[in-house]
């Protein structure tokens, strides 16, 4: 075996992946060749060095941006500024409830359709919320008549979320 043949198989030799005959030939060559032995030591040192290469860390800004982007995707970051007309997602953010809840109340919520898209006018929503507040107030008063102590100052509830 010459040096070129030995060096070609050195990586497999270091990982004990050569068959017995090839491994024996490499071993015999390494025994008599100091230059290839040096390459073997370099290879072994590189294996250790690769495992202990610096672990780089993303910046805090990157981590915050990433978690922010994922939360936004998951609908956990709600918009706070809205135009006069809202779409479905904006409505969920506006009312601060999950999209599923909007789905449950969709027949009740004032809306109109344009180009196949369901839209909600903020002004109509405010009127609808007012009617919900009145209904809730009446319901609460009725309950208070039966149970005098209780939730006198509890807020409006839509879909179980206050």
């Amino acid at each position: 075996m010459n040096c070129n043949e030995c060096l070609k198989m050195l990586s497999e030799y270091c990982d004990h992946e050569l068959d017995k005959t090839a491994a024996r030939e490499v071993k015999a060559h390494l025994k008599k060749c100091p230059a290839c032995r040096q390459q073997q030591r370099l290879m072994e040192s590189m294996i250790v060095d690769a495992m202990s290469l610096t672990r780089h860390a993303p910046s805090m800004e990157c981590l915050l941006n990433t978690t922010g982007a994922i939360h936004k995707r998951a609908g956990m970051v709600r918009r706070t500024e809205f135009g006069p007309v809202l779409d479905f997602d904006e409505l969920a953010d506006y009312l601060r409830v999950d999209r599923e809840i909007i789905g449950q109340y969709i027949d009740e919520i004032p809306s109109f359709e344009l180009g196949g898209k369901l839209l909600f006018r903020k002004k109509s929503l405010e009127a609808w919320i007012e009617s919900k507040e009145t209904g809730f107030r009446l319901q609460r008063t009725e309950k208070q008549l039966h149970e005098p102590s209780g939730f006198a100052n509890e807020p409006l509830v839509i879909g179980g979320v206050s």
Partner: protein
Amino acid sequence: MTNGSHEELMLQVQRGNMAAFELLFEQYRLPVFNFLYRMVNGERGSAEDLLQEVFVKIYDARKYYEPTAKFSTWLFTIVRNHCLNFLMSRRYRQGRQTISLEAMTEEHQGKVGGTGEIGELLEQAIGRLPDEYKEVFILHAVEGMSHQDVAEVLKMNPATVRTNYHRARTILREKVGACLTRKGIKNELQ
């Protein structure tokens, strides 16, 4: 990289548990970032942009995860594909940069010396590997994935992964060895 119950956490993510996704992000952000960082040759800005994009992509793809797949290999498949798309589109825009071994030696003229120079040169040499060798080397030798898992991530035959890995290591040995010889650093290895 430990796997534990990452598959179970991902199933919880599918059921809408955001805290489970945050745990997975916590566990994998460093291995994923280090893979990306080395694939883009240490360009921190690109690696950070890719990290953000890739985790949003993983979140979006949650419903496609099937528990029969090991979570780490599923995740790294997405990471690797996204990274390769980025590299390909960038090369298309800019043309591939080639840096010679000589340039590599010059670049690190002042840094070589004392302990750790092999690690330093190794890091640089990894950056110059062809992508198909680089990704195998990083996933197996740096991130500690088995050849079998690397094969699943890369959708390759395990034998091809093994071959690419040994080729990568042979190239690295040649490059690092040549740089050390050029700098006259031999004592450490004798």
